[in-house]
């Protein structure tokens, strides 16, 4: 049977080996973080490492099943799978079990299943299918709208479950869209918004406005290096400020100076805008729009932060940015996590010798904070190993995706890579204090059946698609 032979021959075994390696490393660390003298048997299913062993076995079965199914199946059934998962996501809101404030689980016997974990591959399938249809063009408004709908529907439903972390994962699809032709401007603005968001929380709005003004002026000068014209710009600002200042004096100092400066900068900008139009200066409009947009965004951040984010989210962001520190409260997890990782040193304390993780100092040590065990017991060397493995794994996935002849496979492959990357980035970033605490698992590492299986399905569909890369569909 040549076809079957070619399946096993065409499977990218490097990826499979990386997958198994990560999974086993994860298990070793779960064993260590839950380990106690009384339950030493690795098959003790009353302990989490025992259970994780079952999940791993099941994951291997799932992987096998996925591989023996025809690759066309995933293409043809992509919408059906997507629709089913959407239905489950709706259903879980009504008949799901609430755990830790999240209505994210179905109880099947004594097992808990988290449908949101399976939303990722379903969305990736649907997205790959839709974007691969003939006549699809990201630049078309309709296409963009449907793509947004596909991505944001599960995200919104998951948000309704109160699982912000899992919902945020869907933002990672932006990178897939970028690869498929979304304007780089979107990434630029996305990055700009993140920078502005952080800056607006860290420095005062007025300072930020002045910084933005400075940047805008520099951009202006770089693009229009006529010094005489450029010199007029500050004059416009000064003039508008002086004017407002005098008006304010006449009114009897009704307004504060900072308010005047804000107004003056807007008025001055408008004047500069008009002047630029008259003189036909290049890019004036773009720079002004970006500047004004940034100002508005900056001022709206405070509102969003204070009124839309929950108290615990505010606390986590405050903690991350060092605005307010509360090592025993909101910052406890991250502080303990950093202590655990930091105490590992270069070579770590050795397998089973971690004291921080073993004695429950780090909460969620076998799920979201599993990287602490790596850092504590294997040290910087272990960190390099794990991060290095992920880097190899992720770039391997991109490389595989790029070698696909079908758009479907490529888009799906990118989706797999960016979803795994998002998890990797947020999870480890959180444990070492460069991301806010967002409770999402580290792929293949963290304890938990649902997440392990969903990542396995996500990955192996791609491996299956890749194995059929010479077929046409």
């Amino acid at each position, binding site marked *: 049977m040549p076809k079957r032979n070619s399946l096993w021959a065409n499977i990218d075994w490097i990826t499979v080996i990386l997958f198994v390696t990560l999974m086993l490393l994860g298990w070793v660390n779960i064993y260590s973080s839950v380990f106690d003298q009384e339950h030493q048997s690795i098959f003790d299913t009353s302990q989490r490492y025992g259970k994780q062993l079952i999940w791993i076995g099941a994951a291997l079965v799932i992987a096998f099943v996925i591989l023996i199914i025809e690759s066309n199946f995933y293409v043809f059934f992509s919408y059906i799978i997507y629709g089913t998962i959407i239905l489950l996501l709706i259903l879980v809101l009504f008949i799901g079990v609430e755990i830790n404030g999240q209505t994210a689980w179905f109880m099947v016997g004594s097992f808990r299943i988290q449908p949101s974990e399976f939303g990722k591959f379903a969305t990736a399938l649907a997205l790959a299918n839709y974007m691969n249809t003939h006549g699809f063009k990201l630049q078309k408004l309709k296409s963009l709208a449907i793509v947004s709908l596909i991505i944001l529907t599960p995200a919104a439903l998951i948000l309704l479950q109160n699982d912000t972390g899992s919902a945020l994962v869907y933002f990672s699809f932006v990178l897939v869209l970028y690869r498929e032709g979304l304007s780089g401007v979107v990434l630029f603005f996305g990055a700009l918004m993140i920078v502005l968001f952080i800056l607006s929380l860290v420095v005062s709005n007025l300072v930020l406005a002045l910084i933005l003004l400075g940047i805008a002026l520099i951009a202006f000068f770089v693009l229009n290096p006529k010094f005489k014209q450029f010199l007029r710009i500050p004059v416009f600002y000064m003039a508008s400020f002086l004017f407002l200042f005098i008006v304010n004096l006449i009114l009897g100092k009704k307004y504060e100076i900072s308010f005047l400066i804000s107004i003056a900068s807007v008025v001055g900008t408008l004047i500069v805008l008009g002047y630029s139009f008259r003189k036909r200066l290049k890019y004036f409009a773009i720079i002004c729009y970006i500047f004004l947009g940034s100002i508005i965004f900056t001022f709206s951040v405070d509102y969003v932060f204070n009124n839309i984010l929950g108290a615990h989210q505010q606390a986590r962001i405050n903690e991350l940015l060092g605005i307010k520190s509360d090592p025993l409260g909101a910052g406890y997890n991250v502080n303990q996590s950093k202590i655990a990782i930091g105490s590992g040193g270069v070579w770590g304390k050795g397998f089973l010798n971690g004291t921080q993780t073993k004695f429950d100092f780090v909460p969620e040590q076998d799920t979201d904070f599993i990287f602490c065990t790596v850092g504590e017991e294997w040290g910087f060397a272990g*960190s390099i190993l794990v991060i290095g493995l992920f880097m190899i794994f992720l770039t391997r996935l991109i490389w595989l995706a790029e070698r696909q002849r079908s758009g479907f496979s490529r888009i799906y492959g990118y989706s797999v890579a960016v979803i795994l990357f998002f998890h990797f980035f947020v999870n480890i970033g959180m444990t070492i204090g*460069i991301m806010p605490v967002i409770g999402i698992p580290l792929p293949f590492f963290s304890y938990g059946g649902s997440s392990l299986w969903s990542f396995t399905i996500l990955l192996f569909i791609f491996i299956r698609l890749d194995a059929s890369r010479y077929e046409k569909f």
Partner: protein
Amino acid sequence: MDIFSKRKYLVIAIFLAAGTVFLIKLFGLQVMDSKYKVSATNNVLREIVQYPARGLVYDRNGTLMVFNKPAYDLLITPREVEAFDTTAFCKLLEISKEELNAGIQKAREYSTYKPSILIKQIPPESFAYLQEQLYKFKGFHTQSRTLREYAHSSAAHVLGYVSEVNDNDINRDEYYKPGDYIGASGIEKTYENQLRGVKGIKKQLVDVHNRIQGSYLNGAEDIPAQIGKDIISTLDADLQIYAEQLFRNKRGGVVAIEPSTGEVLALVSAPTYDPGLLVGRVRGTNYNILLRDTLKPLFNRATQAKYPPGSTFKLINTLVGLETGAITTNSRFSCYGKSTTPIRCTHNHVSPADVVDAIRESCNPFLWNTFRATIRKYNSTAEGFNVWREYVASFGIGQILSSDFPNALSGNLPKESLYNGIYGSGRWSPLTIRSLAIGQGELGATPLQMANVAAAIANRGYYYPPHLIKEIENDTIPGSFKKRRNTKISPVNFEPIIEGMEQVVNGNLNATIGVPGLQMCGKTGTVENNQGSDHSVFTAFAPKENPKIAIFVYVENGVWGSRYAAPMASLMVEQYLNDTIAAKRKWVEKRMLDANLLNPNQPK
């Protein structure tokens, strides 16, 4: 074909950038920054303090005086407490339900995870039974401590007591933690650092809830507690106990010193108290009772009472007169008994009297003349007074004698400025300050200081700082104790004084204070007191040659020196030197033991 294929580089770049950022941050956390390693150790290690037993205290003959007895603290870990039979529990511990609830509440406020002491210092008798029953009560456990125990319930003022540290102690010395014990007075206080030992540390791994998970590195880093050093005191337990017996129902003090070393053989402040009262759970209550006692048992009269030395001071004045050349052994002064001015003599004796006569008869007029001659030898009263004062001071009067008596007072040795203040500069004369001639007036000396004077006289001119410590296990006693201090009196001038002192004992007092076969030298004193009967004072040393004991006895309201102080001193000397009281002196002993002088007004 695929115009966006180059975009893969940006995606990969983002991946690699994230990985690089992580590794840089992790390099900082794990390799560069050591603070997390420290935090981790603090997190996981709980240091459990091992309390050492305090050092023991022996007397000079090796008799054990202070030792330790075990006591147990009952600790509660509120989180681990399960519902229990409170009635049975209260009965077991002999506490009320309110006390129990208050204690549990307090513990809970401190921490629900960490153990805190619910009941302190349960004596071993109660503990044995408690431990049998404790299994019924989850969340309670015990820790052992040691408490002081006294072999003879004596020498309370010398030995001192141990109390729980206060905030001052904790702030002053970081060794102490709340709940620790510290020597609060006496030897316990002075030699706290030697007696306390060194607390040990047992390192144990704990989890985030402070529950013990096991020992750290199998105890490799544990520091065992070091038991406190034993101390051999200079006290003679037998003499001390005997002195306390003699002082029963009396107020006053006695200090006995070995002249050749300055070692204090006995130190009694009466009334005293049983040192065992200030141990354990009852300490607080008993302390308050003692504090309120009108007889002031906590007040250490031997080192803190500024008694006018009375006639015993005449020894010093005579010595100063001889040393300055104001008088010689041939000098005689007339005494007209009760009609002598400016100070009359209450005794009937030969006249004119020489130095020996004057000491034997305690002749006030002789002393007045000597004092006046001493001061008049110099150009001005002030100069003469200052010379006199220096001589007196060389006996240790007006000074803290040694570091062994932390609360001792320096007494009063008036200064020129005092009289200048009262009378005006140049407007006072020997006559103005004549009370000093007979050891009264502005003078105030503690029994410790006067015993030291007796030792200096016994030594014919020098003394060693009186001290309470003979040896410290594996340690040295302060060097100052071995440093001889000379008085400003030449040895030869002591002879007539000592001759007089010998005659005091061998004279008409011999019936009550003469110890057969013992050459004792002494001097009585009667200190005027206008709030009751006069005080009875006696200073002595024995034997005359190579003295083994110098003693000063002060009996408040003892009427006159020979009535109580002298016989008591003689009994103590006899007890110390002969280890027994001669049969023919038993009646004296009985009289002294039976005397009750707590009423300040005694029949003449």
